[in-house]
């Protein structure tokens, strides 16, 4: 009996020590991984601040001896890069607005309006999520060509005003379904039309979903590469993604400028990510749990 307490004490001390060691190892692993995840960005930043001689110096060094911020100005004037940024903004904003508006409309129809065939069309809507875009890409191209839309922004914008894709519709439908019926009943008694209900009652309440859809849409359109690659051939109309690609094929040897341009293109996404992370997480998890 008398021998027990000291043994217990030693055991609990060992347990505490083991927990601390595990916590320390965990933290060290997290820090190491954080460095790994940041490494490509840091490496690009390092190259973007060096002269071309120093970029192609062996062995490579991470911290530049001289920080040539002027590389950024040079990179952005070598090609009409600000024009590309402007083009990206036009396409991205126009497509995202259409996507959010039309997805909220259609989502509302699927969530709150009783129309014949709603269940059937909802199954079709979900099925379109599984459809690889490549299967419909070629006839879509031929259609837009027939309409004279090639070399305009229409193929990159107009389709997103037509529902904005199954995922976004689903996002809005899930949200609108969760709004209690009492919300609309008072307005309905006052003689509000369906449009007024949607526009004045439901949409103002949907701000978190609108933010989620807007952030996700903006990022997707800003990054889109294949669409512009297929539809645009005049380089003055290029968005940043395609402009960068052209830069790489013309002036790829200028690694410092290329990295500067790549970082400038990524910067809006990093800022948007920092600001809108919680909305992105929400969207990501909705696909994960209900998909």
């Amino acid at each position, binding site marked *: 009996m008398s021998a027990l307490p000291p043994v217990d004490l030693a055991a609990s001390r060992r347990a505490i020590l083991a927990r601390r060691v595990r916590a320390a190892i965990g933290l060290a692993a997290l820090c190491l991984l954080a460095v790994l*995840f940041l490494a490509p960005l840091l490496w*690009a930043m390092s190259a973007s601040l060096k002269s071309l001689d120093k970029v192609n110096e062996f062995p490579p060094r991470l911290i530049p001896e001289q920080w040539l911020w002027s590389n950024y100005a040079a990179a952005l004037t070598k090609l009409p890069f600000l024009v590309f940024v402007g083009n990206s903004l036009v396409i991205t904003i126009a497509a995202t607005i259409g996507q959010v508006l039309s997805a909220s409309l259609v989502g509302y129809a699927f969530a709150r309006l009783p129309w014949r065939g709603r269940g059937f069309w909802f199954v079709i809507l979900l099925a379109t999520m599984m459809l690889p875009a490549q299967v419909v890409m070629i006839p879509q191209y031929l259609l837009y060509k027939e309409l004279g839309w090639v070399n305009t922004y229409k193929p990159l914008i107009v*389709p997103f005003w037509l*529902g904005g894709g199954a995922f976004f519709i689903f996002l809005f439908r899930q949200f609108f379904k969760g709004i209690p019926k009492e919300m609309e009943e008072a307005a309905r008694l006052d003689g509000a039309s369906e449009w007024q209900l949607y526009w004045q009652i439901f949409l103002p309440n949907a701000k978190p979903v609108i933010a989620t859809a807007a952030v996700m849409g903006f990022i997707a359109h800003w990054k889109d590469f294949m669409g512009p690659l297929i539809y645009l051939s005049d380089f003055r109309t290029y968005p940043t993604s395609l402009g960068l690609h052209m830069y790489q094929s013309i002036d790829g040897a200028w690694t410092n400028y290329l*990295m500067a341009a*790549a970082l400038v293109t990524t910067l809006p996404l990093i800022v948007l990510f920092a600001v809108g992370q919680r909305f992105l997480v929400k969207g990501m998890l909705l696909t994960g749990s209900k998909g």
Partner: protein
Amino acid sequence: MRAQARRQLAGWLFAAPWLIGFLGLTLLPLIASLALSFCSWKGLGLGTLRFVGLDNYRRLADDATALKALGNTAIYAFTAVPLGLAVALGLALLLSQKRPGIGLFRTLFYMPNVISGVATVMMWTWVFNAQFGLLNAALRAGARLLVALGVGSLTGWDPPNWLGDPAWTKPALVVMSLWGTGGAMLVFLAALQNVPEQLYEAARLDGASRWQQFRHVTLPQISPAIYFNLVMGLIGSFQVFNDAFILFGGRGGPDDSALFYVVYLYTKAFQHLEFGYASALAWVLFVIVLALTLLVVRGARRLVYYEGDQ
């Protein structure tokens, strides 16, 4: 009754944008691409459209480049997806422990998934550069350390030529894909946080080790998340375009070792203007993706554990 009819009409009107889009930009193109896949057409006037039966599909079966592209894509998918799931789960486990500053780490691991695109792939070309790249600088440093410790020797050893050696192009693409695994990580993290604490307590009372708790409590509980990430990962990997296209400047890399299926499809459709053949390629991709999904769904029925209310 009038109100009923009005709401009925409102429903159709509200859904109209999508209904029009679905019929015009999905259903019609779907039928058209199936029809095109049995035709030969260069896109110059409908008069030149020729029905060729199964020729496009027969040609595909004999097209060494197409088969190589399909093989490359399959090798990539079946490496990148399992590795990506393992990394994502590992990160999620590290993040699921309560400690200060955990939100910052989550942000860092998730960010690449959001920002990755043409620009970040270009940054990776510089990381992979055989001579001046960061990855090989790190490998050389590691090798020197091993030599200093008396393990092995450096003579005759060179770090991989990631983008120039056919054997290393696909590993490079896999490494790059691991960088973007943050989306799957978030799904795992949410699933881990939903595992009831009592289950772990019960397991501990039964004397389960940490590994046993992971194997018999965590894994079954998060199996729906694993399943979801697996299906989405496979579907996504077979459609990879940007990474392979940008990393190798729109070509297939050395010896076509990094020619991916969709890159080949793009080349056939929009550079060679072989719309019939490219449509056949697209339909084969569709069938493969569908088959894989069905396979995973069937497997999931045996392996995935769902709470009663889900």
